[in-house]
């Protein structure tokens, strides 16, 4: 098995392990359909949504598997309409819908997305 293969297979079992830091989110594709996937969610301080004149919005970074079944493949991401449902604050009973703003980075194993 090559390093390239290891990167792909290690992500769901090691990095996106629900017993450690990962949680389940729902990803809504712009073209239709949804996928329940594992993600590591960084809940960041509010950030400037500069397009609207210094409006500030809560910002999230999610790390998900770069995979078409256990995650989202990089070429599936559409920043013009994809959305994610996640728990905004620990203890919230209902998830909140957020917008995928941009892809902060990706490699063979994971994709990092910024949400607002």
């Amino acid at each position, binding site marked *: 098995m090559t390093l390239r293969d290891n990167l792909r297979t290690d992500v769901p079992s090691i990095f996106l392990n629900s017993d450690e830091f990962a949680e389940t989110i729902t990803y809504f594709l712009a073209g239709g359909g949804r996928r329940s996937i594992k993600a590591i969610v960084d809940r960041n301080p509010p950030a400037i949504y500069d397009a609207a004149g210094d409006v500030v919005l809560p910002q999230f970074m999610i790390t998900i598997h770069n995979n078409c079944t256990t995650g989202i493949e990089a070429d599936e*991401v*559409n920043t013009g309409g994809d959305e994610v449902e996640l728990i905004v604050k620990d203890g919230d009973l209902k998830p909140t819908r957020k917008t995928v703003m941009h892809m902060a980075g990706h490699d063979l194993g994971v994709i990092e997305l910024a949400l607002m």
Partner: protein
Amino acid sequence: MALSIIEQIAQKILATVQSMDWEGVGIGVVGVSFGVGSGAFTSPTSGAVRPEQIATFQPKDYRIVITQGDMERIDAMSCPGNPPSQAWMVVFNIACIIRQSVDDVTPIDTLKNHFTSEVIQALTTDPWPTWDGLAYNSYVRTIEQYQASDGSNAGHMLKLEVHYRTDENNPFSVRA
């Protein structure tokens, strides 16, 4: 709670944009449903919003975000009296936001021009320009381009200038 004149004007502007007779389907974050199928405007708006200090709205394609800019006293349009009337100019920033799909090959400027033009059409119908007697004039002063540095959205920022008068000692009381 009594509303100041400037707040009443802001609410009129928001209501005007929210009540646009949209052809597309969209749900405003403040719970306003827009028309389906037969409206005069064709931009598929996602609704208009005045954000909280830490906003809770969801950025979407065809979202309108209204924020308030600086207020400036206009001495030339103030009038003597007892009490005197005080003229003010306030700028409302009306962001017309586009978040284009990566599959859409339409030039972004085409989308921006169409959306902004329809928002101007909507704003400049009754109760424009006096907002039901609250102001004495309004202007769309400038249309600024913007593009988010991360590429996540783009659009036009309309600078809507509203001129109004109140009692000098009572910003809750409009003066003609």
